[in-house]
């Protein structure tokens, strides 16, 4: 197993995009912010795109509210050699902007007012992922920064954001809605022959369940959307190509827990299947042992001290050390299982901070650990 060298990655002028991905709750946003701060301080013109950051983390970057455009980070004590801008994704506005950019004024108005659009743009699972990718595409196209660090949405699965554009495409694709609203008319392409009366029944059932109004809205939406659709798909394809290019590096983030590492494994396999460039695995919140004393010796000594009752502090110190040795062993085992399955993936461990990180100093501290300092 090789060590992941984050400094080499961020110092390389050919690295233009760093995507931090992983399952929920592993510290993706914090890692993305720490990398961005470090890159800026090492001279890169950096922008970080965060998704739903914790309030105090957002404040540490000077972000107070959702803003759909990057703002230069201006906090006391931060004078980077390069520069740093930050933004939080506003998914509804990103979607609105996309519609406005692709449709004529008339048509855009029609789409934005459609009730079905409201559903799709706020509660369709996958919209957030899709919009994160869309925003990444926009930031890259702007060309104002030479390094974009992206956090990914807190999905159920780390893979969701790769699949989101595709899912969105099939949802907005006109074929199915045409079938549902008028299966008789759409019968031309032979579907009816295949499923026959079953489909008619199905269409009627769907209409009974979701209601005629919703189907009518959806149908109107898809029609209005039709003209823009090619543009959407084209953009999604370009972003996908950007992700596959040599200037992009994926960092898979995990915590030393079986679920998070399993998810990291899936992700590593998927990236390789899609020929996407993986830079390495970041294992957050590890508990390295800080003193060379084995667990059993510490426990035996603690037993002796407790029997005599002389040195309660030393006994407590020995017990908490033994706990830590056990935790560290478990974490090592879990990471070893991952590296055995993926021997080519470089790994960096970031020790747990005793308390939550929510200021610049904390982010710098994480940046140092990421670079192995």
């Amino acid at each position, binding site marked *: 197993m090789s060590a992941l060298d984050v400094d080499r990655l961020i110092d390389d002028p050919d690295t233009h995009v760093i995507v931090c991905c992983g*399952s929920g*709750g*592993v510290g993706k946003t914090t890692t993305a912010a720490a990398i961005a701060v470090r890159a800026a301080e090492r001279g890169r013109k950096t922008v970080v795109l965060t998704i739903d950051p*914790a309030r105090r983390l957002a404040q540490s970057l000077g972000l107070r509210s959702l803003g759909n455009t990057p703002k230069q980070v201006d906090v006391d004590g931060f004078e980077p050699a390069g520069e740093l801008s930050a933004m939080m994704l506003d998914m509804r506005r990103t979607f609105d902007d996309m519609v406005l950019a692709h449709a004529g004024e008339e048509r855009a108005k029609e789409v934005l007012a459609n009730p079905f659009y409201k*559903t799709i743009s706020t509660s*369709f699972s996958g919209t957030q992922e899709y919009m994160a990718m869309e925003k990444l595409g926009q930031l890259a196209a702007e060309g104002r920064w030479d390094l974009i660090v992206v956090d990914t949405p*807190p999905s*159920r699965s780390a893979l969701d954001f790769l699949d989101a554009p595709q*899912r969105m495409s*099939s*949802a907005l694709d006109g074929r*199915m*809605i045409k*079938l*549902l609203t008028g299966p008789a008319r759409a019968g031309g392409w032979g*579907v009816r022959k295949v*499923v026959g*009366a*079953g*489909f008619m*029944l*199905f269409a*009627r*059932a*769907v209409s*009974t*369940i*979701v*209601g*005629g109004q*919703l189907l009518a809205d*959806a149908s109107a939406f898809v029609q209005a959307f039709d003209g823009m659709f090619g543009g959407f798909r084209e953009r999604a394809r370009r972003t996908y190509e950007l992700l596959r290019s040599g200037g992009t590096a994926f960092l898979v983030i995990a915590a030393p*827990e*079986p*679920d998070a590492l399993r998810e990291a494994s899936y992700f590593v396999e998927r990236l390789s299947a899609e020929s996407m460039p993986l830079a390495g695995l970041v294992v957050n919140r590890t508990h390295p*042992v*800080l*003193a*060379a*004393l084995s667990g059993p*010796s510490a426990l035996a*000594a603690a037993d*002796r*001290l407790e029997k005599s009752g*002389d*040195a*309660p*502090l*030393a006994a*407590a*110190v*020995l017990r*908490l*050390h033994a*706990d*830590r040795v*056990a935790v560290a062993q*478990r974490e090592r085992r879990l990471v070893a299982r991952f590296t055995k399955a993926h021997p080519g993936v470089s790994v960096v461990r970031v020790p747990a901070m*005793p*308390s939550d990180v929510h200021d610049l100093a904390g982010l710098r501290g994480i940046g140092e650990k990421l670079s192995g300092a």
Partner: protein
Amino acid sequence: MTTPGVGWTEHIARARLHVVTGKGGTGKTTVAGALALALATGGRRVLLVEVEGRQGIAQLFDTQPLPYAELRIASAPGGGEVRALHVDAEAALLEYFSMFYNLGFAGRTLRRMGAIEFATTLAPGLRDVLLTGKVKECVGRTDSAQRAGRYYYDAVVLDAPPTGRIVKFLDVTRAMVDLAKVGPIKGQSEGVVRLLHSGDTAVHLVTVLEEMPIRETIDAVGELDGAELRPGAVIVNRVRPPRLPARSVTSAADGRVDASRVRAGLAAAGLDLAPDDLEGLVAETVEHAIRVQAERSAREQLAELDLPTVELPESTDGVDIAALYEFAEALIDQGVR
């Protein structure tokens, strides 16, 4: 365990549907599994349900991925059993259709065409209505043949979406706004609403003693109250024993650990450590103290919620099936029944 919780109240014990939520990473699925085992102990039949397509239950019990069927996955002490069901919205929709419409063999073709997924995409609320609808069917099912008039399952444990999405998921009334105002699904969803808002349902919140999970727990309780859903117990997971004498915690957290006293104590136990290692032990002690202090304030915040609380210990070796049975026992010791 410095503040033993109120434990499992009579109120919660009456519930037949136990919804388990929590922030991602707090061990929600593990707790749901342990709770199912605890409730099954003593000869009862419990169904453990998952709805997010993660196959977390199969991984927890170390079995093959679950199909859309109720399968026995574990036996509980005293002759009880836990069955598991992985509800998938598309399968639930097909099942639902077949109750009211005869789709014949078209179902599979429709699925392959993406028609089923499309229908659930069309109205995101439909997904949740279907998932909770299936759960309701399991809770309300009676088995007239063998145990006349009794419920088929003594309890149902739902490994639910995380705290950030739980109220939206359970608020079927709101989801129905998307859907038809008439027809069979309307009637079915009214039944779901009645169940979820009744004393038969308790929504348990899993947390660990850290700042963010505690905050999310508090927020979720507020949202549940707002939606008139009943919070059950707070289940504090991965509780680690405090090792330092209580009076030393504050000073140690400030970095004040008397290294010479530690060294003298170690010497008395026959340990002679290098200066670096002694320094390392002191650093570990400071980190431990900071964590214990954070856990204290987390407990104080939790106490303000005034909800029944039970605790599960950290399992340093990780969670395997043996650990699940231990957790179930710990829950029973704290009154789970």
